[in-house]
């Protein structure tokens, strides 16, 4: 029927297709989670801009809804991402330790720290998961830093569109890919 080289070619084709399906599934799940966090971040930053005294409780609510929603999406998509969820819990704990426990970041610093922190993780993940993560992470980090240094009193409003809108658009684009 077939010889070794044909068998090897067939296995290579199988591996190629399997890898593309795996990447496609990752993008599919990630895109939904990004869009969720985009909407939540937009609401969070907008609330912080309009009603700064409710910022703390708003972000607690955003994080709770965000993590519950991300877990639900992963479950529905059969993504089996418990390790990713656990990794994020560890990262958040580390971030909280330094931003609030040790260094006492200002509200503006916190608004810039968290998205750049998460986007650093996205960028690292992109080295394995695909270039889309790297591009999205780079863009949001750059725009966050531009806003932090140059947007003056409009920073939270800037972040609503950069972080919130950026994640929403990025998720929509990734979904198409």
């Amino acid at each position, binding site marked *: 029927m077939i010889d*070794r080289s044909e068998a090897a070619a067939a296995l290579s084709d199988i591996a190629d297709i399997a890898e593309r399906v795996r990447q496609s599934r990752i993008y599919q799940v990630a895109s939904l989670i990004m869009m969720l966090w985009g909407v939540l971040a937009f609401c969070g930053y907008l609330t912080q801009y309009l009603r700064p005294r409710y910022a703390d409780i708003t972000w607690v609510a955003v994080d709770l809804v965000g993590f519950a929603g991300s877990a639900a999406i992963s479950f529905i998509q059969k993504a089996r991402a418990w390790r990713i969820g656990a990794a994020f819990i560890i990262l958040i704990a580390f971030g909280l330790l330094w931003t609030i426990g040790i260094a006492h970041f200002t509200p503006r610093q916190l608004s810039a720290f968290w998205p750049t922190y998460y986007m650093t993780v996205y960028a690292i993940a992109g080295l394995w998961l695909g270039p889309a993560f790297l591009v999205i992470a780079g863009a949001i980090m750059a725009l966050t830093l531009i806003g932090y240094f140059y947007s003056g009193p409009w920073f939270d409003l800037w972040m609503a569109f950069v972080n919130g809108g950026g994640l929403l658009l990025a998720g929509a684009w990734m979904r198409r890919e």
Partner: protein
Amino acid sequence: MPQFDEVIHQPLRLRIMSALSTLPDKQGMEFSRLKKLTGATDGNLGAHIETLAKAGYVSVEKAFVAKRPQTTVTVTPAGRTAFGEHVLSLRQIIDSGAQEN
């Protein structure tokens, strides 16, 4: 001894089975996505899916989503087993250095 499967081994059918077997159990793939992944034409893809369905390796479900027809193809347990066996047989051919016929 793993079974070399002539039905699966056709290049496009091999790609179809590879794509579908990568998904979790009972999760299928839309026809349009399968077409993009395999680079096949509508007619060609449809014909090969029908061959796989007749062999009992895939199931085809047609539905309407937002008034648009949508066809979803899912590997069956028999198809997953047959594909797994076929992959093992390919590896065996490479390992043994055997020439069949």
